[in-house]
């Protein structure tokens, strides 16, 4: 096995097991930490594909900012494993059925798909220079529209979060 393959399998196992850890651990703080580890594994995959910019932005945005906010909420609410409410039987049954259905669909999709050999030739599209050029020439319209979308979401959040006039609480 080459270094590339060893790294690939290591990162894959890490990503999948950490992702399982997110849903299996009972303590929400542990779930968040597993999710952060998953992001690191995915960033590792990006680096293997020579997409350094995506890798680091994934870490800055998701691990560095969004997950910190998640942790905030969880820590302030002080959720623990023993405060988790007991689900009733009907919900559990519905969960099992829908999960099983999803599993079947995924299994069916996986059966018919062919396994592609890892492509190891390094591409330069993930480097920041090429990515920027592509984004601002070929995909400039979708890029700008998505930025407007972010802006509107931000304004919406400010409007919701703002206190109403005369209300001082």
């Amino acid at each position, binding site marked *: 096995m080459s*270094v590339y393959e060893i790294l690939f399998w290591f990162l894959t196992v890490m990503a999948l097991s950490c992702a399982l850890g997110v849903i299996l651990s009972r303590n929400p703080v542990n779930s968040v*930490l597993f999710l952060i580890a998953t992001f690191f594994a995915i960033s590792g995959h990006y680096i293997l594909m020579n997409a*350094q910019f995506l890798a*680091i932005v994934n*870490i*800055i945005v998701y691990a560095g900012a969004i997950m*910190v906010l998640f942790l905030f909420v969880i*820590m302030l609410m002080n959720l623990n494993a023993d405060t988790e409410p007991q689900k009733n039987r009907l919900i559990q049954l519905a969960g099992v059925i829908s999960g099983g259905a999803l599993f079947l669909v995924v299994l069916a999709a996986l059966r018919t798909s062919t396994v592609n050999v890892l492509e190891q030739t390094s591409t330069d599209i993930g*480097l*920041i220079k090429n990515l920027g050029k592509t984004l601002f020439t070929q995909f400039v319209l979708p890029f700008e529209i998505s930025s407007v979308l972010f802006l509107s979401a931000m304004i919406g959040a400010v409007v919701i979060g703002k206190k109403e006039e005369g209300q001082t609480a």
Partner: protein
Amino acid sequence: MELDLMFILGKIILITVILLGSLGIAMYATWAERKVAAIMQDRRGPNRAGFMGLLQPLADGGKLFFKEEIIPDRSTRFLFIMGPGLAMLTALMTSAVVPWGPDIVTNSGIITLQVADINIGILFIFGVVSLGVYGVMLGGWASNNKFSLLSSIRAASQAISYELAMGITLVAMLMMTGSLSLREIVDQQHGFWDGHYFTWNFFKQPLGFLIFFVCALAELNRAPFDLPECESELNMGYHQEYSSMKLGFYLFAEYINMFISSVIMATLFFGGYNFPFMDQVAGAVNPILFSVICVMVLLTKAIGFILFIMFIRWTLPRFRYDQLMRLGWKSLIPLALVNMLITGVVILWVIK
């Protein structure tokens, strides 16, 4: 992929030297802090251990190592231990992309004084800095103490708020340099005067540097932004439950961070290892000596920044929390945006 054994060995030596160097400088930064405080308050400061108290950091370290290790009963044990480790790890990781000196060209090959010249250098630093919050947050939460939790949440929200302004300042910088690699940014600031204007970025981005410096202070949790350690409101801060070397790691990580961020400010804005008349000096001495001079120049700049940060700590009073947030969101971010706009206008219409 053939990996050269010599290459790996060289990198390992370089990493070891850099890590030990940063640890040593951070150690003596604690001594310098106490001396600076003493001088500014008309005291003598540490003067018992060794000449001028120079052995004081070793005595402190020894004391911390031999203290009793206490892990609170109701704490989350694993995270409680991981907290200081993470703080230390993120503090040391940033040093990997800093170019410490120019390449040394010898007969047997080129020696690079940089661990990794990746083409996303600045973003790497930014990423590691944004991860630095976790050490504080996890430590504070795992202590299972309300004061620690409040303090760590303060620290984290402060760091997130000031990261934004810092990022926007960096955008303005990058528009000018056109590269994210720290090596290239330093090379662009070669010498001091290029015949028309100063080469150092500080003279091209003075407002940017000011914002960056304030944000760096806030990220470091240094005075006047040391709210997470505000003892009058929060007993001691997020490390209240910590003892022995775990506490030492938290305190020490702050000093390492201070050193590394000083180096980064020197690299980004004050020319890194470049100095006036460096071409003449390079012609006069042999290449190895020249590299040593360059490294010394960078370290001198960094130490200057460290001293400046210390003077600020012992001069200015602490901000109140709402003042801190107002400064970050309502002053620095708009200012950084204006700075970015001006930079864009100048690049588009004046320089072309």
